[in-house]
């Protein structure tokens, strides 16, 4: 039962319906601001993606060893090692070559250890 001042559900629903039809319409300025924001956010995102590009495996490896200058040093050291390995020793140093030849022609039996080490240092008694 409804009293004199009671408002029925139907009356309230009719009021809601009117309010729905009377909804505020966004101004063109507001719509423009919102779409400008969308474009700006997108541009900022694009900018960030350009600033931090996806880095290749080679550039990450280069960074790990210290960059291009370190790579140059590494190549030079490797080339030197290869050159030393393949070269005839006499080509490296003439004097070093003759010393090696002397060592090769001398047998252990011919070596006079006594002239190198004094006799009292070669023999000693225990106890």
């Amino acid at each position, binding site marked *: 039962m409804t009293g004199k001042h*009671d408002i029925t559900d139907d009356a309230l629903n009719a*009021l809601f319906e*009117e309010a729905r039809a009377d909804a505020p319409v*966004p101004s063109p300025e*507001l719509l423009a601001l919102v*779409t400008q*924001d969308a474009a700006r*956010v997108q541009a900022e995102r*694009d900018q960030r993606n350009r600033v931090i590009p996806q880095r290749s495996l080679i550039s990450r490896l280069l960074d790990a060893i210290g960059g291009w200058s370190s790579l140059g040093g590494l190549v030079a050291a490797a080339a030197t090692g290869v050159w030393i390995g393949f070269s005839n020793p006499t080509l490296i140093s003439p004097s070093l070559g003759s010393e090696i030849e002397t060592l090769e022609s001398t047998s252990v039996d011919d070596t006079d250890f006594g002239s190198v080490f004094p006799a009292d240092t070669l023999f000693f008694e225990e106890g």
Partner: protein
Amino acid sequence: MDMAFDQMSEISDDALLVLYANGDRAAAASLTTRLAPRLLGFSSRLLHDAAEAEDVVQETMLRLWRMAPDWRPGEAKVSTWAFRVAKNLCTDRLRKRRGVGLDEAPELEDEGPSVEARLIAKDRIAALDWALMQLPDRQKQAVVLRHIEGLANPEISEILDISVEAVESLTARGKRALANHLASRKEELGL
């Protein structure tokens, strides 16, 4: 390449947001056309201030654009997410306006429309708006979402972060309170 604006009408909000995240600006325009009027209606009813309601719409949409790359399609509705953000922004503004926390804020007593309110409430819609402003925030949010924005209770429960039963209770109490607030003006408003 951007899709033509009229091609967008068949596409879901979800898909439009993904398109926007992938660089399609027409998708942003389409989403704005869909969401901005609804958010403005909702915010206007909660805040009763056109300029503040427009600020809330712009801020909500800005957050949507920023969140777009992280959006996971199919998990939630874009409109639900947007209403929820708008509701929170409105709540923050109402708190600042009152200068106290919502929980501490005293509920307005039913004193009937003031002289000023009677002057402002020239017609039925204005009277409804005035009566809505007399409701506690949660009731007002639930009533506006259910009866003016026409959202379903499960969607409202997500927006307000409460159970569907709590939504039903809030809207029922809200409607009763509205009827009480408008009762003294029944004849005048032709209700």
